[in-house]
């Protein structure tokens, strides 16, 4: 019993309340938002330290003993996700200070952002299936708000489609919860792990597992359920794109990993075989979709899909090494992807467009920004020694170890195609002369210099990518510990149901 578990969830809601109260003072909102994100990071780091030192931490909300009350449980997977969430929250809070205009702050940007962070952390920490549904709703509500904030036509259009498909996924999720409760009589994840083993009707259980797979598959953007993602992610301001791209689909992946390592492990060949097929198809279709487009953020959106495929691949292979790869991939990907969206916002701020055809000459005018793009972009493609290389290496090796040659080959080929896409952005936006002033040498003087508040988080996240790439050891160790817990669900169950 340790209340430290609850802080990363409670804190963002406190910040949201404070910033809501300061609705009409945009500058103070931005400041309090940054301060709150710093505190959130501190709370996440404290929890991270506690979990790495003394194992899984649990908290029974309201002192109702598990499995009757709501349980919060923090294992290594949870704290890794919360740590990255807090880092992204801070980066975006700082970035928004410069990018988001006062009218959006007045419209409630800051409260929505922090409610989103709180909802995401709640989803990562809860040990109760129905509570997971509630956190998903909190997160979705905030993301709906953020997505259409500003009410531009294309935002409303993308938002409507995003809302439709996500509401449907939520309904599927809650139906699954109802059916699973009807079969087992419990909603506590640890208790479900035990109760599911006693069920005799495996066919019914497989059907419920498929419902959950579909629901979380829609949230995660898995093939063939990803079409909502590239419709909506390129419409809001870059800061919003970045936080949605960094966090939301990954909560879906997290929920898949949690449920399909703790509850639905009655027929691994069936469920994880399905996931394997979906993962390979997701990787390939995502990257091919990206190759077809010429808009900065739409290319990045398709890459989210392709990268989600890698994470699901790690879950589908279901060996300790593969799961460690999935966790490492999540860690690497969330930072890199959010950073790329932030950079797209910066380059659009400089050149006035997200269309690659209208971008150009950024290398001549903004060398430092080009370097900052180079690091996450080629980390995403898996160039050594950047973080993406290690993430892909682990997954490919895990695939080869158990003879999943198709999956390993797909992982390598998709990596190459990702490199193609990133080179396309590099050569169009950064390398080629600016379409306006064709190599006149004036770019350097006339180009506006990017705002320091926007450059700072980008540089910070790029530095983090470099650190993970150059010193993967400690990060890999945490990922391996998370994988160890995931492959030994008994540890989680014992921690939650101790002293029953």
């Amino acid at each position, binding site marked *: 019993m340790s209340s430290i578990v609850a802080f990363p969830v409670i804190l963002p809601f406190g910040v949201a309340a404070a910033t809501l109260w300061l609705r009409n003072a945009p500058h103070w909102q931005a400041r309090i938002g940054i301060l709150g994100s710093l505190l959130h990071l501190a709370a996440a780091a404290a929890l991270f330290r506690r979990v790495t030192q003394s194992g899984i931490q649990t908290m029974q909300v309201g002192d109702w003993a598990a499995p009757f009350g709501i349980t919060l449980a923090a294992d290594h997977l949870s704290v890794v996700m919360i740590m990255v969430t807090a880092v992204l929250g801070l980066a975006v809070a700082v970035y928004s200070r410069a990018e988001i205009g006062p009218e959006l702050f007045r419209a409630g940007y800051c409260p929505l952002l922090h409610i989103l962070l709180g909802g995401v952390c709640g989803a990562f920490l809860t040990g109760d299936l129905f509570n997971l549904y509630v956190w998903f709703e909190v997160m979705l509500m905030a993301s709906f708000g953020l997505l259409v904030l500003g009410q531009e036509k294309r935002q409303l259009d993308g938002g409507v489609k995003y809302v439709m498909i996500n509401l449907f996924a939520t309904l599927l999720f809650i139906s699954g919860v109802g059916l699973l409760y009807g079969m087992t009589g419990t909603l506590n994840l640890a208790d479900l792990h035990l109760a599911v083993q006693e069920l005799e009707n495996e066919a019914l259980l497989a059907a419920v597992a498929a419902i959950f797979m579909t629901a979380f598959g829609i949230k995660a953007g898995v093939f063939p359920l990803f079409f909502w993602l590239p419709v909506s992610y390129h419409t809001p301001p870059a800061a919003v794109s970045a936080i949605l791209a960094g966090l939301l689909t990954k909560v879906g992946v997290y929920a898949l990993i949690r449920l399909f390592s703790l509850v639905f492990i009655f027929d691994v060949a069936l469920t994880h075989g399905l996931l394997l097929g979906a993962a390979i198809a997701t990787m390939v279709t995502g990257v091919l979709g990206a190759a077809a487009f*010429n808009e900065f953020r739409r290319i990045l959106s398709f890459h989210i899909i392709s990268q989600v495929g890698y994470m699901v691949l790690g879950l589908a292979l279901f060996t300790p090494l593969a799961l460690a790869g999935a966790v490492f991939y999540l860690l690497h990907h969330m930072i890199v992807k959010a950073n790329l969206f932030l950079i797209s916002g910066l380059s659009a701020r400089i050149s006035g467009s997200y269309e690659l055809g209208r971008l150009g000459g950024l290398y001549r005018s903004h060398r430092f920004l080009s370097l900052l793009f180079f690091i996450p972009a080629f980390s995403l493609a898996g160039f050594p020694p950047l973080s993406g290389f290690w993430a892909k290496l682990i997954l490919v090796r895990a695939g080869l170890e158990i003879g999943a040659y198709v999956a390993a080959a797909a992982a390598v080929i998709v990596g190459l195609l990702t490199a193609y896409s990133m080179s396309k952005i590099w050569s169009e936006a950064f390398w080629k002369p600016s379409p306006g002033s064709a190599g006149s040498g004036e770019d350097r003087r006339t180009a506006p210099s990017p705002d320091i508040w926007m450059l700072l988080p980008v540089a910070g996240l790029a530095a983090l990518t470099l650190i993970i790439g150059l010193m993967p050891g400690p990060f890999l160790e945490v990922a391996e510990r998370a994988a160890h817990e995931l492959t030994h669900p008994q540890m989680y169950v014992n921690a939650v149901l101790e002293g029953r």
Partner: protein
Amino acid sequence: METALAFVIGIIAAASIYLMLSGNLIRFIFGLVLATNGVNLLIFVSGRLSQMSPPLIPEDAAVPAEPVANALPQALILTAIVIGFALLSFVFILFYRTYQSLGTVNTESMRMAEPRASLPEAWDGRSQNPDGHPSPEDAS
């Protein structure tokens, strides 16, 4: 009773999916309302239908004296109704605002976020509009 309700839930689900897929925002909302109720009914039935006494424990006892009805499904449904209601009101406003702004409730003609000019087959390096976003007249 459970069997009959299972069929009712099935019919509600089928009708709601039909409405949601019809490509019209108004019909989508009706489909959503229907689906929410269907799911609530599903949770209700999966918690077992019974005619037992309410889950109240006498003051001097620690456990109920006789078998009682399961109160949890109803608590779950109550939560789902509240969340569903909030979502529904948000969806109403979003769709109305979208209708005001885009002038249509037909999802097929909503192409602001994915303008045809920037679709790959039409892309030839020179889009007609500077931003690649069509003006409202193009979308109709």
